[in-house]
């Protein structure tokens, strides 16, 4: 269970507060106008920003002061999910050991996840030699390998076309099912939310609201969200 207890964050004119409880294994879309604080919410959970007050708890343990890499979390960013100078195999292997001293069983695991995302035989290439969809698969393969219980997605598939994006969401769905991960996915596409996440967190007016069922929220949105969705 992921809890945001009475979180408040301020930076210049911007402020965000959140008081949420998200059950293990849940899928949540995070939706709101640009600049509302969707990415800030993910950064606070991921450990890239620190709240001015409040606590981030995972299964009763306080992880508020923990470094990003020590948290039980995998993050997919909007850009820069892969190191362009490393091979696909190295990029994925970093998920197991950042110093890349992998033993035989770990190397086998890397080969296995490469196979699972349909990229077997591409391990020695660099990201630039892959298509956008394939690069997303590499990032997902690393998520699969790390198998952390929380998964944060900050619109990593925004640059992909509709068909590719649907493919990635379905792959993501399988991975999250397999690892029983709690997933928070920022999106600006209500269709993504309807397909992927039964519940949605609305970020509006400096507050991350408690999750509500996605379909009714989108069918009858509050005024601010209505203006954003158009």
């Amino acid at each position, binding site marked *: 269970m992921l809890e945001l207890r009475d979180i408040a964050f301020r930076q210049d004119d911007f402020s965000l507060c959140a008081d949420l409880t998200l059950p293990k294994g849940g899928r949540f879309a995070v939706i709101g106008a640009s600049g509302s604080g969707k990415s800030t919410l993910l950064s606070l959970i*991921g450990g890239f920003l620190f709240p001015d007050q409040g606590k981030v708890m995972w299964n009763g343990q306080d992880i508020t002061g923990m*470094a*990003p*890499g020590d948290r039980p979390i995998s*993050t997919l960013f909007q850009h820069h999910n892969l190191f362009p100078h*490393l091979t696909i195999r190295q990029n994925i292997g970093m998920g197991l050991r*950042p*110093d890349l001293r992998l033993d035989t069983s770990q190397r086998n695991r890397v080969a296995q996840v490469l196979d699972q995302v349909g990229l077997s035989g591409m391990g020695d290439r660099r990201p630039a030699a892959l298509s956008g969809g394939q690069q997303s698969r590499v990032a997902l393969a690393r998520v699969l390998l790390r198998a952390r219980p929380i998964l944060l997605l900050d619109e990593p598939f925004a640059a992909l076309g509709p068909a590719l994006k649907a493919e990635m969401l379905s792959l993501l769905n399988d991975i999250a099912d397999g690892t029983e991960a709690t997933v928070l996915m920022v999106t600006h596409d209500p269709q993504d939310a309807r397909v992927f996440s039964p519940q949605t967190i609305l970020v509006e007016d400096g507050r991350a609201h408690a999750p509500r069922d996605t379909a009714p929220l989108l069918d009858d949105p509050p005024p601010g969200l209505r203006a954003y969705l158009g």
Partner: protein
Amino acid sequence: MAARLRGVIAGRIVAAGLGALILGTLAAVAWQAGGLSGLGEWDWRAVRFTIWQAALSATLSAALAVPVARALARRRFRGRGLLVTLLGAPFILPVIVAIMGLISVFGRNGALNEGLRALGLPEIGIYGWQGVILAHVFFNLPLSVRLILQGWQAIPSERFRLASSLGFAPADIARHLERPMLRAALPGVWLAVFLVCLTSFTVALALGGGPRATTVELAIYQAFRFDFDLGRAATLGLVQIGLCIAAMLAARWIAIPAGFGAGMDAGQGPTGPRGWRVAADAAVIALAAGFLLWPLAAVMAVGVPRLPMLQADIWWAAGRSVVMAVISALLAVMLCLTLALTIARGAGRWIEAAGMLPLIASPLVLGTGLFILLRDMAGPQQMALPVTVAINAAMALPFGLRALIPAARSLQDDYGQLAASLDLRGWARLRYLTLPRLARPLGFAGGLAAALAMGDLGVITLFASDQPTLPLKLYQLMNSYRMADAAGAAVLLMALSFGLFWVFDKGGRLDA
């Protein structure tokens, strides 16, 4: 968390160490200095000459650079790109080599005076203030041309197209497009050259001297070396620091453009006016290229055939210099990298300021200060080489940081979060993220540091003569009028300086 802290702490330690080295040295100088009353008429003349020659060198360089930059901006010809690249070369050309070249063209037995004599005209002398100015223009004209050319290329080509669609004559283009750009760019160019000439030592040492052509740096050297009057050397050092700080404060009001930016040739240049201006531009370019290349060609013509005959002590000096330059460069690169990474993580501005500190302290002032601090522990002979290596590393920092800080910032912006989320830190981060991503600016910074250290003839002159570096050896050969050997050594020195730069810079691009 701990690794991040360690990284930041390492940066603070480097910055503090650098601050201690430079400010501590300056404090030692200040401690040793007598009051300004200790300075005689000779010293004040040196102060006045320093300011005057820097101002005149800056004015001439900037003024002469305008027509050259305009010609290069509006003409396209074969070899133009090469020429623009060559304009960057004087930055890493050893000063003493250029002086050698200028002497062989403008000296008493040079081609120019041979010609004047044949025509029955009076000869010109290269020793004295005119030689100092000539050498400063030789070094700074190319720099100024590059800076002004950047200004020209920053004018959007749409403006030139609009101008030609409105039927602008060259005078109209000058009035509406070029003069506003020059008004913005020239003060910065002038000040950049002025700053360089303010701490000029090697040029004054080789071509100046005497009551009418002694700079403050040279006066420090003479007080230290000939009179062994540490108090007066230190007081002059304080005067030199005062001049640098005053000029730096002036620079806060005037933006100095970066000296060796990339992307010099972006976009299509404006099509220049036809008619007599084509010939005029061609003449300007030919004159500038000749002024730049002739002295170097003259040295090479004498020096290259001489290379196989160079004596063992010259090769020893060359080996010593290469080792010192490489150590200096590695030191500079490590310090730069540590500082740049700390700055990129948003550490305080004082760290960046510490990295720029070497700009206010000239090598001779630092050398004098370090001698004062260390004289009870070691003799001048033992100090010479380590102090030279350390000071050369410190002097390269501002240039290295200018290349590294932007790269380190974008590394942190682009991959900082990904690295943190994967817990990539310490050596693994250095090996798999920092070094591969920063290889290019690191190689460039290392190349600059190595070339500058290789060609430096500054602080070493204070101390050593039994273990000379190659530039010092070359200077000694020139002083004993062994000009053919000197030319050979000059060619060797030039090749090694450019070679070191090339090796480092290429090393940074291996992966590309």
